[in-house]
């Protein structure tokens, strides 16, 4: 067995056991564990195993490993912890809380993602504690019309059963279902009407998760409809159907697109990396001599490429192809081709050579944004 696989399996086993232990502790030795929900629990344990396993394998890939290690290194650097923490909080709010970067891609897309994300977050925050026996409600002995939520075995403030608060809390999953279904419908609409999206999407990667989320939400809603207005009509079938949709979704988590939920936070490490890169010594192109990217990034990439089996090292004067800026790379390919046709030029251009320039320097025509313009295509 490969070392990576062994490592990943060990981490996955460890986290699964930890969740098991937390379930026992949080439900006070299973006293508040609802046996009817045992299938959900096992699906969750499987999901934790699968997600941790894939995550651990992923972290061991050379590019991820570099960012992971460097991200922490840079975050914990002495004297920068304060500003790093500030950056972390800003990023958490703008990237994760409000999805600022997705709104910039497209307004409707931003709305879609907000609905899906917050719907799922709300549903998960309610469902998992209930399933694991971490949350239950007790009628108060002296006031049977008041309920007290018990979280992880600890009592919290009680509220009247017939109150707005109770209505909102007990229908939490209904609200989340509405959010998710709204999001799914917007996403489906885009996938069906946008030819560009339709061309590059894969069914399993892009449609299946939407279908699963929709099925979970709809069957959950129908359960509420059944017991609220239809005197429990079809309840058993619906409960079974709902359970199946939830369990399939949980089992699917480690494999498909929904795994991006766990990968995405890597963005935070990258933010630190870029922050430090912007302030550190730039690399200068081996051909045109202009600054591009940071020396740290170029060096890290050389390591990553070597670990991946690429041999961009150069026996000649450049040393490593990575040390040539992207613009000069584009020019070099064409110059090499032209030289094949006319024979090598009689004149050897002295280095640094002139830096190639965009034929159309307009934003979006040449560079896409500040990074393209200033930094990465000098």
């Amino acid at each position, binding site marked *: 067995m490969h070392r990576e696989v062994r490592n990943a399996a060990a981490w996955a086993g460890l986290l699964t056991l930890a969740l098991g232990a937390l379930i026992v502790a949080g439900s006070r030795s299973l006293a508040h564990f609802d046996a009817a929900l045992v299938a959900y629990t096992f699906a969750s344990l499987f999901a934790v195993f699968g997600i941790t396993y894939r995550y651990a394998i992923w972290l061991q890939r050379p590019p991820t490993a570099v960012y992971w290690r460097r991200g922490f290194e840079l975050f914990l650097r002495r004297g920068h912890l304060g500003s790093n923490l500030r950056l972390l909080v800003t990023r958490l709010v703008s990237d994760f809380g409000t999805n600022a970067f997705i709104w910039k891609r497209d307004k409707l897309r931003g709305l879609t993602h907000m609905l899906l994300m917050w719907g799922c977050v709300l549903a998960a925050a309610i469902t998992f504690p209930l399933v694991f026996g971490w949350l239950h409600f007790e009628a108060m002995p002296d006031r049977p019309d008041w309920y007290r939520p018990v979280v992880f075995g600890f009592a919290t403030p009680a509220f009247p059963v017939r109150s707005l608060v109770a209505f909102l809390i007990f229908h939490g999953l209904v609200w989340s279902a509405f959010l998710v279904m709204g999001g799914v419908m917007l996403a489906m609409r885009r996938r069906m009407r946008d*030819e560009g999206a339709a061309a590059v999407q894969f069914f399993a990667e892009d449609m299946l998760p939407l279908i699963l989320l929709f099925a979970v939400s709809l069957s959950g809603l129908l359960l509420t409809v059944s017991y609220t207005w239809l005197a429990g009509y079809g309840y058993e079938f619906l409960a079974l159907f709902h359970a199946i949709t939830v369990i399939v979704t949980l089992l699917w988590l480690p494999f498909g697109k929904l795994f991006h939920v766990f*990968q995405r936070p890597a963005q935070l490490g990258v933010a630190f990396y870029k922050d430090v890169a912007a302030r550190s010594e730039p690399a200068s192109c081996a051909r045109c001599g202009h600054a591009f990217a940071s020396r740290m990034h170029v060096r890290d990439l050389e390591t990553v490429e070597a670990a991946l089996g690429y041999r*961009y090292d150069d026996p000649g004067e450049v040393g490593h192809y990575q040390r040539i800026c992207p613009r000069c790379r584009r020019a070099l*390919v064409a110059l090499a081709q032209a030289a094949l046709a006319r024979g090598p030029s009689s004149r050897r251009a002295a280095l640094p050579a002139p830096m190639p320039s965009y034929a159309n320097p307009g934003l979006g*025509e040449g560079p896409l944004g*500040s990074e393209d313009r200033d930094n990465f295509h000098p």
Partner: protein
Amino acid sequence: MPVPESHEFFIDPRRCIGCNACVQACTECDTHKGHAMIQLDYVDRGASPQTVPVVCMHCDSPTCAEVCPADAIKRTGDGVVQTARKPRCIGCNNCVLACPFGVPKMSTGMNLMMKCDMCYDRTSIGKKPMCASVCPSQALFFGTREEMARLRPASRVLNVFRFGNQTITTRVNMLVPGQAFVESLDVLSALHEPAAGNDAAENVLLDGMEAPHAG
């Protein structure tokens, strides 16, 4: 639907007249609406009219995808390397800096890498990519090898490139002169090549003067 195997992309930078038609056409592709993904550069604007159009070469083992920490770049079964998948890309710039052809672009605000994906919305239903359909000089051409052989009997196609010790094979072909007996294009061999026209400039106009850009 996959892009038919018989249909290939051919690129011949020597023919590029820098007209910007491809840049404009590229913005109309549906997979990256409104942004041009083609990279069109002057090699040495002050001294030469030589321009270079660069599209994604769709490498067989794409460096961009391999160095991506987020698994955001997928290669379809028909050999097209797709632009970064939006839910995954974390905007780290690895692909931008690692692509040997200098293709990907970085959209800072959207935190997203974008690049040419051979107009998959078009090529997967049998149409030509936008750039190839408008290029007046056929520096960018999409079609079959037979068509190419008929149009350019003196050229042959090459899709193997060398960068230092690394050899990369691509789905997109480059046209080279028929008599150039090379198995691969050695990119770094051009390190000291001046842009086309520089020689003439030096001989005719700058005789006796210091070479432009030296130093």
